[in-house]
């Protein structure tokens, strides 16, 4: 005989979920209303246009460029790594994804260094911001990532072949 499940009954659970959803919905709308009020009361109209433009461009660049690019890259990768085993393909994909994510965060540093180049002595430029050699660090990171994942891919290949050989022998 099955014992009854201990805990709130289905209708009680549904009621709780309903109340939680309603509370979150009301709080969310209130926060959004407060934000709109805050923007209108504190940010001049000219700047609001700038904010709207940045929001629109962010959506376009992300949804229209970045994600389609990842899809293209993923498709190309499937063809490039066709000869590899499933585990090896997974390692290549994982390593490239990690590299891409780190590049996403590190690349703006390199761009900022170019843009905020000091403009001569006495310009008051702060020598304690953006002082790292980020391009070199990113390059070294990619090399380490490539070497490490190549080593793992090779090791997996070698291990796979050996175990296959052993299997055919036995």
């Amino acid at each position: 005989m099955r014992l009854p499940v201990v805990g709130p009954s289905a209708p009680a659970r549904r009621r709780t979920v309903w109340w939680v959803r309603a509370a979150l919905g009301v709080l969310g709308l209130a926060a959004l209303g407060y934000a709109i009020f805050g923007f209108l009361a504190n940010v001049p109209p000219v700047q609001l246009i700038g904010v709207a433009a940045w929001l629109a461009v962010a959506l376009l660049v992300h949804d229209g460029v970045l994600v389609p690019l990842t899809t293209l890259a993923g498709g190309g990768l499937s063809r490039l790594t066709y000869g590899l085993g499933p585990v090896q393909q997974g390692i290549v994909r994982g390593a490239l994804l990690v590299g891409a994510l780190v590049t996403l965060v590190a690349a703006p540093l390199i761009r900022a260094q170019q843009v905020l180049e000091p403009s001569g002595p006495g310009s008051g430029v702060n020598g304690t911001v953006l002082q790292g050699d980020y391009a070199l660090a990113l390059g070294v990171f990619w090399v380490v990532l490539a070497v490490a994942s190549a080593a793992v891919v090779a090791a997996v290949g070698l291990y796979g072949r050996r175990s296959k050989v052993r299997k055919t022998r036995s």
Partner: protein
Amino acid sequence: MEAVNGRFSSPLRSRRLTVVLGRWLGLAFTVCFLTGLFSHLLQDPPAWMFFLTRPVWLYVATQGIHVTTGIASIPLLAAKLWSVYPELLRWPPLKSVVHSLERVSIALFVASSLVEVTIGLLNTFQWYPWPFSFRDVHYWLAWVIIGSLALHIAVKMPLILAHWSRRADEAAIAADTEGGGPDGKTVTAAVKPGPGHGWSRRGFLTAITAGTGVVVLTTAGQSFAWLSGLNLFAARRMDTGPQAVPINRTAAQAGVADAALAPDWVLTVSSGPVQKTFTLAQLAALPQYSYGLPIACVEGWSQGAQWRGVRIRDLMATVGAPADAELQISSMEKGGVYGRSFMPAAYSQDEQTLLALELNGEPLDLDHGYPARIIAPGRPGVLQTKWVHKVEVI
């Protein structure tokens, strides 16, 4: 349109994946919101605000967590949005009024999140390539995001609950498949990824976790000393700058060098009609105290240092100021957020709040606020006013 959508389909995408990523991103955004709100309340305190001066590293922790969590949310946001990308291309785009409202609210949520993490990151570089005030827009977008997050969870809660745990996820998929639900096929495929790519949900999540981990470990060293050895990709380095302390704003940027180096500099201390002036030599003749206090910037970097100078409460006593008085500190820098700061009694009465004359055993460097600057425990760096020339009871 469905054909276009098909091109973007991946067996990896599933509701379970979205729920797992959404949990992490929701947590990161909530932490960012709360720590950011705390920082905002410290800088623009409402009447009910209470101030903690201990632990002295309080603001180091909250603002370091704010910036580091914000950086961590960049890979999490990218992965979460990738996982729901086909929703963008669903056809028809608008099914009903409610559906249209939901899509508009999600567009606002996504755009605000993308802009918020971008301008937050660039702000740590002191790079402002946008036509609006960072402070206002970062703050009000945070309210848009936290409101949208609550609303989004409210709308999606049945789906979130159905895929919250692995067991619930499997049950939901089984029910979907039996019922011949519209998504039954794709979702089932997601559970058993095709053997071709060797790329499972777990593999994808491992890569996202690793990417987020690398990004955190290689940037958090600007805020937390025990990670400074791994600091490769942060805008700031610990132990750099004059006297091994980084700078937010140089004397040249503030335009105070001449005034600060003038030999006739005096500090004015006043309480109502009582007013006194001190030369640098007179200040140095008062009892001096030395404390190890961190300076922590709103941009997330921090630095521990040894400060030596006169206690603010001793200075106030010289003009008979009441103990519960709030102070206004004026800099020789004119205008803006750096020109003056207000100091509630919680800080001015603290024994470790100094008008510092020395840093790490030497007279203050000009860029650190020579001849005298404020250093108080647990306050944002922007309120640690430099190049001080007036302390008044208000």
